[in-house]
Every structure is written in structure tokens, then in C-alpha cells.
């Protein structure tokens, strides 16, 4: 059994939800059973994902559980596209996260999804298959296919079950992301043509020409940056989130955005390291601006869901900073922070759903005093807030701290500004808590239906994860350690080249004096 599982683990991860979605589409069953069938498939996927997480070998940075079947020869090149899947330290956590979030979404769905259950379960499972595929694909073409496959379900999730302005939001979301995807396709074709292979591990081990890297990086990175999203490509996000049903928001924030950061690491950094070094200063600035600007925007929001959406922009700014600092600790922080964001923002979106189902409003001013009338909600909201502002002891702290800590040498000013974002985070998140939870409870907020079992089931695992990763992140961090060290090492030669090139011309540059500050010997010299 175990050998079978190990051999087909990744195939199962993609196939189970895929088969499940088709099964649900055709099985003759009532609404309740449809949801149960969907949940069964999602739970089976989760079990497989956890098996893969548990037996993941932390002592190697390579791909594990790899499977490969040739598919078709790419016309015009020597390349053969294959159905290749593999999992390494970059993907293992995201796979587990996707596996965890999907059953929770299905469990909590009845709160907001009342019609067309069959389609909902179908799209949800289809999306899971797509996401798993994105994180596991070992072939550029396969990656691209999964990338697009994961997009379409969300188009329908928002378009069918969304809020009033759902068509505008979903079209905007799809078109915007598609612009990026098509750019990626262009880059992908050129990489395939010039290197003659589409196999990702193969490409990762090669040193592609600097010119090709430069071109492909721009194509790929733009697509990923839109997906993350970073400022200024972020404006689709609040619209999509506000219109999306709860489950859609949870998956969008929890997993879809991570496809962007995952891509930045897998391709931006691992495949095109030379270009990543060139672009790093720009991206670090973008990351830091995202943190501060996103925080300010979140602070100004009057709509609870928009506030959480903008906070995502700020949080993912940290991840971008951590990636392009190229330091192993910061990279580990970036990987972890991606997962953390999925957990805490996922929980926040669930909570927005919980209160929206009861009050049918998301305006901050309509709430107040919920801590009195709805204490279980208050408990989870405060906990998710604390994780979101990175209080030590919660998962958010470990991620943020590792990013800031690791990025510090060489990027002192960036880190200083990013750390200001930690202050601003407290400003807007606690401001939100103040308005929603505290103050005198108004009459309309007095008699709220208590927390339902399905809501407890959706929120408790996330709350447990916040504390578990915060207090004992060891097992999670171990799984990412080697791959992050390898990533950092991959960039190092190019980093040294640029430093050598820039040293003679401007030795009095600000970067230089800063590094002197951290280096007493340099001071004496």
C-alpha cells in the first residue's frame, strides 16, 4: 500500500480531485450527498498530501516522488513534452496547504452557496486539481496548462456565486491574469526553442544564456507579479475578493496568490538567476512599497473584506522582499510566509463570511460590540488578527521575522521600511477589531446565530495551525531548508559578478557605506 502510494503520490494528488470533479458532475445524488462526495474526494486528496508531507525527505534539495510519462514531441524543437510531476521543498508546503484548505471550503460552503451545488463542487475540485498541478508540474507546457486550468474555475466561482458586481470583477480578474499568462507563454516558447527542452529539472540545472534569461524573466515575472499581486498590478484583487463567495476568497488568497510567489521562486530565481539578480533592486523596492502602500490602503477601507484584501497586498510584499534578498533565511521565511498568509488570511475570509451570512453587510460601521454578542467569532477574529500582525508565538511572526532578519544584511533600508509595515499592520488590523468587536453592542448585532458546527470545523484547524507553526515551526522549516540554501547558492555567482562590476565605479555608493556599518573591519579601512 505504502509503496503504491509513494509511487503514485503526485499522480493521485492531481488525479483525485480531477476524477472527483467529474464524478460529482455526473453522479445522480441530492445536494447533500453531492457535497459529501466532494468532501470525500477533497479529504482523500488531503490524506495523500499529508502522507507526502510526512514522508518528505528533508535531507535532499531535489525533487521527490517524481513521475514522468512522455506525452508528445513539441513541433519545431527536439523537446518532448512529458507528464512529469515532482515535489521539492518549495512545493511541499503549498501542496499541503491546498490540501487543507479545500475540505474546509467545502465544509463551510453552505453558509454562502445555496444554489447550483453540483457545479460549485465541480469547480472547486477542478480548481484543486489545477493548483496541485501548478505546484507539482515538472514540464513547462504542463505547468502552463495547469496554470490556466486553475484560473477558469475561479472565473465561474466568482461569476456565478459572487456578489452584485460579480461579472465586472471576474472578467477583470481573468483578463488581467490572462495578459500575464500570455506573456509567460511567449517567454515559455522562446525558452523551449532555444534550449530544446521543456523539462523543468533539466532547465534548472542549466545556465541559460544571459540574454535569454533577461527576456524570459520579464515575461514570466510579469505574469507572476500580476498574480501575487504586487503594486501597481494589484487592483484586480480587491474587486475579485469583494465579489467572490467566501470559499472563492479563501482559495484565491490562500493558494492562488501563492502560485505567483511560487513561480517567482521556481522560475524567476531558480531558472533565471542572472536576470533575477539584475531585477532584484527593483523588485525589492516594489515589495517594500507594496507593504507600506498596501497597509495604508487597508487602513483607509470601510469594507471589511476590502480591508483584508488590501492587507494581502501588504503581506505579500514581505514575501517578495524575502525572495529577492537571496538570503537562505529570508527565502525560508518567504516560503513559510506564503503558507502563513494562506492560513491567517484564509481564516480572516472565513470570518468575513461568517459575519456576512448573519448580517448581510461588510461595512465596518454596521458592526461594533460583537465581542459581547458573538464571543466565539471575536476569539477567532482576534487570533487571526494577531497572526496577521505577526505577534510572536503565532505563525505570522516566524515568517515575517525570518524575512526581515535574513534580508537585513545588504538591504538595511529596505528592511527598516518594511518593519514600519509591521507597525502599520497593527494600526489597521487593530483598528478593524476596534470597530467590529468593541464598543457598545447595537440592537441589530445583539441576536446573532451562534457559531455553527461547520464554522467551527472550518476555523479550528486554521487556528491550531497558527499556534503550532508559531510555537514549533521546526518540522515546517526543515522541509524548506535545503532547497532555500540551494536557491541562494544558485544566485551567488551572479551576485558576485554584479558586485565586482559595480565596485570600481562607485565605491562611495550608499550600499557600500551601509555594508561598512555592519562590518567593523570595513570601517577601519
Amino acid at each position, binding site marked *: 500500500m505504502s509503496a503504491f502510494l509513494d509511487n503514485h503520490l503526485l499522480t493521485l494528488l492531481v488525479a483525485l480531485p480531477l476524477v472527483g470533479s467529474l464524478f460529482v458532475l455526473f453522479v445522480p445524488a441530492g445536494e447533500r450527498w453531492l457535497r459529501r462526495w466532494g468532501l470525500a474526494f477533497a479529504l482523500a486528496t488531503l490524506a495523500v498530501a499529508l502522507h507526502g508531507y510526512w514522508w518528505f525527505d528533508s535531507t535532499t534539495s531535489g525533487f521527490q516522488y517524481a513521475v514522468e510519462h512522455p506525452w508528445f514531441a513539441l513541433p519545431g524543437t527536439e523537446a518532448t513534452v512529458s507528464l512529469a510531476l515532482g515535489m521539492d521543498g518549495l512545493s511541499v508546503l503549498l501542496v499541503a496547504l491546498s490540501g487543507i484548505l479545500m475540505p474546509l471550503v467545502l465544509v463551510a460552503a453552505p453558509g454562502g452557496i445555496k444554489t447550483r451545488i453540483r457545479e460549485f463542487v465541480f469547480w472547486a475540485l477542478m480548481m484543486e486539481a489545477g493548483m496541485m498541478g501548478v505546484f507539482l508540474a515538472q514540464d513547462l507546457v504542463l505547468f502552463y496548462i495547469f496554470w490556466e486550468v486553475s484560473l477558469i474555475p475561479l472565473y465561474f466561482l466568482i461569476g456565478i456565486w459572487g456578489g452584485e458586481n460579480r461579472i465586472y470583477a471576474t472578467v*477583470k480578474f481573468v*483578463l*488581467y491574469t490572462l495578459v500575464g499568462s500570455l506573456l509567460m507563454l511567449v517567454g515559455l516558447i522562446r525558452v523551449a526553442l532555444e534550449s530544446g527542452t521543456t523539462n523543468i529539472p533539466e532547465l534548472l540545472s542549466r545556465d541559460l544564456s544571459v540574454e535569454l534569461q533577461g527576456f524570459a524573466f520579464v515575461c514570466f515575472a510579469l505574469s507572476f507579479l500580476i498574480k501575487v499581486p504586487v*503594486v*501597481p498590478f494589484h*487592483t*484586480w484583487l480587491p474587486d475579485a475578493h469583494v465579489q467572490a463567495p467566501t470559499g472563492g476568497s479563501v482559495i484565491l488568497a490562500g493558494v492562488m496568490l501563492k502560485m505567483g510567489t511560487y513561480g517567482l521562486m521556481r522560475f524567476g530565481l531558480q531558472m533565471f538567476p542572472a536576470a533575477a539578480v539584475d531585477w532584484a533592486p527593483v523588485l525589492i523596492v516594489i515589495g517594500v512599497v507594496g507593504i507600506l502602500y498596501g497597509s*495604508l*490602503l487597508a*487602513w*483607509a*477601507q470601510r469594507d471589511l473584506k476590502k480591508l483584508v484584501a488590501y492587507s494581502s497586498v501588504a503581506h505579500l510584499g514581505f514575501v517578495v522582499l524575502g525572495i529577492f534578498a537571496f*538570503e*537562505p*533565511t529570508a527565502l525560508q*521565511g518567504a516560503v513559510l510566509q506564503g503558507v502563513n498568509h494562506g492560513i491567517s488570511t484564509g481564516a480572516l475570509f472565513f470570518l468575513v463570511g461568517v459575519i456576512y451570512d448573519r448580517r448581510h453587510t461588510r461595512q465596518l460601521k454596521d458592526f461594533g460590540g460583537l465581542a*459581547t*454578542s458573538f*464571543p*466565539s467569532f471575536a476569539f477567532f477574529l482576534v487570533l487571526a488578527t*494577531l497572526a496577521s500582525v505577526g*505577534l*510572536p*508565538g503565532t505563525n505570522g*511572526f516566524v515568517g515575517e*521575522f*525570518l524575512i*526581515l*532578519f*535574513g534580508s*537585513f*544584511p545588504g538591504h538595511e533600508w529596505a*528592511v*527598516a521600511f518594511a*518593519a*514600519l509595515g*509591521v*507597525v502599520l499592520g*497593527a494600526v489597521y488590523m*487593530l*483598528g478593524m477589531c*476596534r470597530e467590529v*468587536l*468593541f*464598543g*457598545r*453592542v447595537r440592537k441589530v448585532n*445583539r441576536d446573532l446565530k*451562534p457559531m455553527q458546527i461547520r464554522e467551527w470545523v472550518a476555523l479550528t484547524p486554521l487556528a491550531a495551525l497558527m499556534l503550532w507553526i508559531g*510555537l514549533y*515551526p*521546526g518540522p515546517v*522549516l526543515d522541509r524548506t531548508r535545503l532547497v532555500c*540554501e540551494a536557491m541562494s547558492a544558485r544566485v551567488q555567482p551572479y551576485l558576485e559578478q554584479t558586485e565586482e562590476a559595480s565596485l570600481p565605479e562607485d565605491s562611495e555608493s550608499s550600499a557600500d557605506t551601509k555594508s561598512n*556599518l*555592519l*562590518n*567593523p573591519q570595513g*570601517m*577601519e579601512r
Partner: protein
Amino acid sequence: METPWLWLIPLLPFLGTLLNALLHAGVLRRRQQERDLMAPAVAVPERLAGWIGTGAVALSFLVAVAAFLRLKALPVDERVLTATLAPWIQAGSLDLSWTLSIDPLNAAMMLVVTGVGALIHLYSIGYMHGDKGFCKYFSYLNLFVGMMLMLILSESLLGLFLGWEGVGLCSYLLIGFWYEDGEKADAARKAFIVNRIGDFGFLIGMFLLYWGGGGSLNMSDINAAASQGAFSEGLATLAGLCLFLGCCGKSAQIPLYVWLPDAMAGPTPVSALIHAATMVTSGIYLVARLGDFFAFAPGVLPVIACVGAATALFAATIGIAQRDIKKVLAYSTVSQLGYMFLGLGVGAFTGAVFHLITHAFFKALLFLGAGSVIHAMHHQQDMFKMGGLRDRIPITYKTMLIGAFALAGVPLFSGFFSKDLILFETATGHTSPWLLWLVGAGGAALTATYTGRLLALTFYGEARFDPQKTKVHESPRTMTLPLMVLAVLSIAGGLLGIPFIMHPLADWLDPVVGQATLEVRGEHHPAHGLEIALLLVGSAIAIGFLSFGLRHYRRSPEEQRSRADQATGLLRWLANAWFVDALYALLVTTPLKILAILSATVDVFFVDGTVNWVARRSRATGNDVRRMQSGGANDYALWFSLGAVVIVVGLLAGTR
């Protein structure tokens, strides 16, 4: 020496947190079933919660005593106990574990925190009786003690930071404990955010220390690295200032003190425990703990001394014009913390810790006493509406009198010895000694005055309330017992250091701060004559100004009250705390908020506007181009010929 059971010290309060949280959940459940959200916690869980909470901290105190005795039994230069539970964060070059480490300095802190903490828990049983969040209160209070112990006992700076932010969280939760009052919820939020500004400095300071030569986040390693000159001067100064910014937040010093007076919105035992005796002294502890590092960071200690002295005087001026009894004590706390920093700044590490300990005793006593007064007066906090309470609540009166004497620095009370030690060391220090001494002495005069004012307005004279309506009664035993114990400690605390006779605290702390003291102050030159002279001056100031305050306000409370009501001129500035809050709102909060709203506008109209403009433009272009396909043969012929011309021209240009 590896001593695993040290972990019991913080874990016991955490266990209490958990149990009380469960009790609270049970109460909430019952309320939900009875559909009555406002019902008080019923008698059984209330009694249980109180005793679980108090018991957890008391047990923790006993374990702490055992640890202290174990430590004491060790030879002087080997006095360190450690306990490692598990790894925490291991990433890249970073390797942190859950490790506690007890040396003489934090052993002293630990005893104060658990001891005073247990007393305040006991007091809370009476004070919070009947509150609907009773179990929750004890859950939070236990959590606070646990976090405070993590702060004190952690070996690494990051573990300390965990406690540092953790106590900040508890402070937030407890200031906003009665969150239905919007103002209290605002005060809680303010406290958290102002502390976060300080924590920003803490984080950056930590990074500078690690990457700038420390190579470790363990405080002993950083101290050792500093002694070996691993840090450049500029870096050490910068890192020290960053850490001190963190201290300014947590320990309420200029410019970040503004949250502490507002923090009085919390229940009074919370003010006593968190905002007087323990949490706010974290900054002092941090500087003392990193004493060797600060001793080697030139330029930081003088800044600390000046900020401390300025805060001591500044806050005292405000304290003199407050009419809320808790506000007086709050500004007094800010001021006394200033003295501690003044001591640290001139290298009197022992003196600072001494004052920290005595202050913990007498200020906790004063706050608890004030709580007893407020309890007796049915939540009246305005001192101008009190008066004549002396005989009505005799135990509270007598114990508070002792606390007041200690605060004012009346000879033979504990505060006298500790404050005068700091002032003496200031006068013999290297940082503009006489100016700082003068500021400190001025602050001491103001302290004695407002202490006298507090006593006079609260306890003496005629009752300025209707005794028929407000039935004043002495507090229950659970509340008076801690008062009496703390009163004894407020006197006996002085025994930790009596000039010329005994100085057990200095001897005890010597292995930790001795080196740093030597580094900052140089060889110790006894100056007996000066010391005696300063002691006499200090006594004169304390007694003189205390009796001035007492007499002045006792004689004419009504006149003072009408003056306070009108609040003109200087009094208006003092009563409104020099309008610093308004200044910050004007300079910081409002501009930032405007910036946020501006950003949101820009985001919608410009950033998103561009996106939508592109979309609209594309559609419009499509619409325009669509007209080409009009269906008329003439049009097609036109476009066909135009296209042909373009292609031909292109080809010709290409071939040439």
C-alpha cells in the same frame, strides 16, 4: 547547570490561562443557552477561576523560590541555571531553542513578578467579584504572568521579544477589558500601537546586533562579543539607540510614554501589576541585562540618562495637576521609570534594579490602595469628590500611607534608599552630574508634593461626597491582605541596600552587572561625605515637600477644586499633560490618516483608473476598427488597396 524544572515557572501560569479560558467558555455557553449575554459569571466558576489563577501564580512563585535557592547555593561565578525544552526557530544561520536561563539579575526579577503577581491575583478575586468576564480576566492575567516570565527568563533576545510582545498583547486585552466603553477600547489600541513603534526599534536593534558582529541572539553571547570589541562604535551606538527606542515604548519614556496614562482604563489591579510593577520595567531589565553591551556602546548611556531625567521631571509636573487618582499614579510611574533609566544611564545598574524592586512594591501597593478606594467609593476616581476617607477605610488608609511615604522618599522607607542611591550615583557619574542631579532632585520635590496632595485630597479633611448616598466600606479580606503584605515589603525593601550598613542586592547582582558598572563608572571611589550630604538633602526634600503638599491641599480643597475646574494658565497645561496627545495627533496621526485616504483615492482613480482606461480604450478601438467591416464592397475595395500599398511599400523597403 541544566535544570529542566525551571520551565514550570512560566508553564504553570500558562496552564492557568488554559483552565480559566475553558471555564470562561463554559460560562459563555451557559449564557448562550439562557440567552442572556450580560449575566455575571456564576458563583462556582468565579471561585474556581480565582483560585486557579492565584494558585497557578503562587505555585510558580514557590518554584521560583526553589530556583532562587538552588542558584544561591552555587559558587558566585557559576550562578547560572538553564533549561532547554525544544528547538524553536532553526533557519539559515539562525538556531534558536526554547531555553530559559536564570542568573542573579533575572532571578530577582522573577521573584518580584511571581510574588507581587500572586498578591495581585489574590486581590483581584475581591476586586473583580461579580464581573461578567471574571474567568476571562484571570485567564488574561495568568497569560500576562506567563509572558512576563518568558520575557525575563529567556536566554535569547528573540525569546525575550516573544515575551515583550506577549505582555503587550495582555496589556492590550486588559486595558480594553471593559471594551464596551469605546474610550477604553481606544486606549487599548493606542497602547499596542505605541508599543509597536518601540518594537520596530527593538527589531532593527536585534538585526544590527546579530549581523554587525554579535553573530548570535543569545544575550550572554552579545555581552561577551561586546566585551571583546566585536562591534564598531557607530554600530553599537545605533543598535543601542534602536533597542532603547523599544525600551521607551515598553517602559513609557519620552517620546513614547503617551500610552501609559490612557492605560489606566483597565481594571485597577491590572494597572498595579502590568502598568506599574512589572511590564513597564521590562525596558530597565533589558538595558541591565545587556549591561556589558551598553557599557561598550558609547553615546547611548548618556542619551538614556538624559531621557530618563527629562521624563522623571516632565511626568512629575503633570502628576501634580491630575484629579483622577489613577492618573496621578500613572504619571508618577512614568516619572519613577525615568529615575530608573537615569540610574542605568549613569552606570548605576544596581541602583536602577533596586529602585525597580522597591517601586514594584510601593507602586503596586499604591495602585491596589487606589483600587480599594475606588471600590469603596463605587467607582469614583475624582479625588476632589473624595476626602475624609481616613477613618472610613482604615486599613487602606494606613497601608497607602506607607506606600506614599516610600514613593515620596521619606527616610527609612524603601523608596528613600533606592532613589537616593540613583541620585547619589548621578551626582558622582560622568554625564553632566550636577545638572542631572538637579533635574532628579526637582523631580523628587514634585513627587513628594503630588504624593502629599493625593493623601490630603483622598483621606483628610471633610467628605466631599454625600455619605448617605455613597456607602463607603472597607474592602474584603482578599483585598486588604495583599495591601498589608505589600506595605511590609515597602518598608522592608529598603533592607536590600542601606548605605554604609548593608548592600545584599549589590553583592547579589555583582556577577551580572559588576563588569558593566566598572566599565562605565571606573574604579569605585568612596565619597562618604558627599553621600551623607546628599542623603540629608534628599530627606529634607522628601519631608519638606510632602508636608507642603499635605498641608496645602488639606487646608483648602474646595479652593483647589474650583481652581482645577477653571484650569487657567499653567494649571491648564499641566492638567492637559502639556497637550502632547494633541500635538502627536496633529503631527503624526492625522497626517498619516490623510495619507492613507489619499492613497486610497489615488488607488481607485489613478492606479485602477489606468487599468480600466486601458480596457475601455481597447474596447473603443475594437469598436472603431469594426467599422472597417461595413459590408459595403466599396469599403472593402478601399481597405484592400490600402493594404496592398502598405505591403508593397514594405517589401520594397525590405529589399533595398
